[in-house]
């Protein structure tokens, strides 16, 4: 435990705490224009004006110290010093949204009454101005009895002033604190209103931009159609925009492979680099552009304030399956990755709702599935349009996503009728004002995603693939026997093959299934490695792209079954680990893994048998 003074950022959801945290500490915490972005405690270091370090913690937003959901519980525990092994904060920075003052001041008063050294950051003054509101920080400070600093966290305005006030707090100049004792909710609210009124210097009728946009986006019919259209464009774009940069990356990977061949003498080192490293990991890296395009859309949805609207639109449908619109936000986040999606369920108050959402989150198509879908689609689905400029490949991709969403909703419905039965909870949510996404935030977000993806490729994917290469390269097969079958890995895969043969999986797939538990993308690198190893002496085969080689060895029915498997299969250790943590045990984790494997098996089987019956074998 560090002995540094501890300062906590606290306030209502979406007030800009994390933005302020980033601006003060240089961290890159996730921001988003909807309530419930931050769901755990995050610490960073901040230097006061005299250079003394202070530990600053960013907390989940909450409306009071009476938590109604697990993320709010975190904030309460930290503020009241109940977090295990953590000391109580020495000072508070209360962040309030200037454009929503009466509401945020109520919680601020509750916090000030705790008696800790406190400074108030009057954030988002730019938005207040946009709404025609002018506020006086001095009046506010006088009424609250604590220093108040106007800030615009995202433009780094007011930070120096805030630091100076923190200096004052940390240097122990005690504030003259007029303790109010415990006061009831309504008294505090009335007080907050009075103070907010007093602080308003000028109030001109505002342009109601948000309400005007919402008239379209929240329209019962138009809003729903627009949400679907948005998702459709998103997945079309993943295919069509990515092809040029992906081709370029593929060119680089090929060039790298040739460089290895040209510089190294034939032998084990050469094979290892070419088949295990360049061939395997390279096959995954070419999907970087697709992943970035997906994140580009997700980041925009999060930054504009659309996430809360999506929750609003989906609420009626979610209610049908026993969930609420709020659960749609973690599910949308799971398009990126199920791990943050499952974390985001902490914002759901009802324990059964939350559990159900955790159990279905892995059904949402995460970005790690993109390489697998991308590989199979580009190999087996012709790149032509089906009218109106809609690409067939993008359409199939969209359908796979829809398949995942529908699967998740059906699963939620079934779970709510059986194992997570209970009163369905209501839907209450704050709808933030719209904001333009800031280009800088967008670029930083994309950069972070690229780094994360490349790190994954360079660590877990590379490592798993190296192990696989070794297991696949030995012992050496005699002439006429395929190396991938004769090797240790091949023999293990032979056992798995017996299990999955009925659903149309061949030996290549059987080989890829186990290692892709580490990371789904490994399915792609593993298959690439199998082909590289088997093609060792076949120069012609090596020149062909991975997709082309797949076409030669897999039937369409098998390819489709493989896709169906990946829609459902819980093949990701991180998801399993985070589920265990968030559900506090193995019981529900085991249940989740079990039901998803059963679903995957059945779905792949049905797909395969149907395809065979249709003559696609």
């Amino acid at each position: 435990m560090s002995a540094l003074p501890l300062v906590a950022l606290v306030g209502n959801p979406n007030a800009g705490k994390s933005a302020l945290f980033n601006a003060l500490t240089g961290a890159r915490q996730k921001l988003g224009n909807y309530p419930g972005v931050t769901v755990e405690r995050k610490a960073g270091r901040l230097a006061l004006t005299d250079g003394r370090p202070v530990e600053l913690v960013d907390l989940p937003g909450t409306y009071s110290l009476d938590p109604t959901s697990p993320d709010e519980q975190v904030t309460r525990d930290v503020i009241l010093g109940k977090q295990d092994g953590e000391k109580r904060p020495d000072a508070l920075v209360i962040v309030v949204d200037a454009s929503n003052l009466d509401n945020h001041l109520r919680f601020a008063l509750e916090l000030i009454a705790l008696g800790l050294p406190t400074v108030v950051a009057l954030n988002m003054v730019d938005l207040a101005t946009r709404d025609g509101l002018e506020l006086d920080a001095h009046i506010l400070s006088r009424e609250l009895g604590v220093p108040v600093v106007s800030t615009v966290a995202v433009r780094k305005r007011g930070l120096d002033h805030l630091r100076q006030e923190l200096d004052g707090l940390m240097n122990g100049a005690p504030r003259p604190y007029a303790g109010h004792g415990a006061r009831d909710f309504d008294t505090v609210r009335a007080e907050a209103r009075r103070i907010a009124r007093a602080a308003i210097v000028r109030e001109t009728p505002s342009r109601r931009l948000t309400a005007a946009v919402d008239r379209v986006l929240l329209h019962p019919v138009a809003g729903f159609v627009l949400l679907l259209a948005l998702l459709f464009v998103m997945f079309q774009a993943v295919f069509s925009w990515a092809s040029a940069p992906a081709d370029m990356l593929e060119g680089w990977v090929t060039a790298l492979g040739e460089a290895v061949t040209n510089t190294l003498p034939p032998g084990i080192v050469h094979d290892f680099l070419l088949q295990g490293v360049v061939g395997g990991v390279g096959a995954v890296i070419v999907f970087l552009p697709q992943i970035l395009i997906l994140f580009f859309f997700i980041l925009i949805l999060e930054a504009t304030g659309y996430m809360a609207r999506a929750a609003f639109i989906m609420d009626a449908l979610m209610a049908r399956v026993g969930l609420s619109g709020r659960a749609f936000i973690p599910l949308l986040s799971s398009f990126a990755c199920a791990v943050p999606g499952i974390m985001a369920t902490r914002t759901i108050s009802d324990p059964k709702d939350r559990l159900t959402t955790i159990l279905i989150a892995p059904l949402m198509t995460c970005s790690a599935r993109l390489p697998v879908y991308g590989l199979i689609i580009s190999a087996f689905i012709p790149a032509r349009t089906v009218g109106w400029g809609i690409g067939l490949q993008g359409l199939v991709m969209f359908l796979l996503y829809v398949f995942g969403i529908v699967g998740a909703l059906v699963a939620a419905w079934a779970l709510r009728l059986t194992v997570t039965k209970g009163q369905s909870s209501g839907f209450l949510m704050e709808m933030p004002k719209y904001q333009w996404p800031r280009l800088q935030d967008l670029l930083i977000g994309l950069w972070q995603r690229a780094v994360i993806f490349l790190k994954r490729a360079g660590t877990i994917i590379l490592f798993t693939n190296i192990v696989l290469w070794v297991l696949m390269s030995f012992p050496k097969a005699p002439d006429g026997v395929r190396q991938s079958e004769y090797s240790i890995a091949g023999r293990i895969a032979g056992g798995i093959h017996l299990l999955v043969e009925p659903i149309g999986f061949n030996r290549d797939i059987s080989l890829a299934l186990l290692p892709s538990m580490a990371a789904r993308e490994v399915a792609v690198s593993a298959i690439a490695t199998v082909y590289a190893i088997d093609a060792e002496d076949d120069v012609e085969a090596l020149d062909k792209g991975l997709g082309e080689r797949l076409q030669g060895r897999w039937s369409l029915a098998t390819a489709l079954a493989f896709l169906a498997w990946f829609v459902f299969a819980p093949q990701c250790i991180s998801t399993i680990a985070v589920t265990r943590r968030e559900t506090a045990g193995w019981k529900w984790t085991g249940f989740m893994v079990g039901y998803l494997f059963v679903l995957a098996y059945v779905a792949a089987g049905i797909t395969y048998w149907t395809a065979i019956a249709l003559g696609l074998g």
Partner: protein
Amino acid sequence: MRLTELPLRQPAYVDLIDWSALTPSEGQRLREYGLCEGASVEALHHGGFLGKGPIACKVGRMTIAMRRTHAAAVTVRTGPDGVGSQDKPA
């Protein structure tokens, strides 16, 4: 009149809230949103097909969404001062 029946974009005041129709945590959350007797409200959007979806309304300076079952627990009255109203809807 109930909040569910309030015409869109017509300013109104909260008259009465039937807290017993809400669970304790829902009641707490609504209070924390600033929805209480005397607060100004305005219904902005009705979501969902066939009016089955949630309602978005403005409470003070904030826009919140709630299900119709919650909104039905809120009685409102229209008019600038909350006493009687000239433009009562039909």
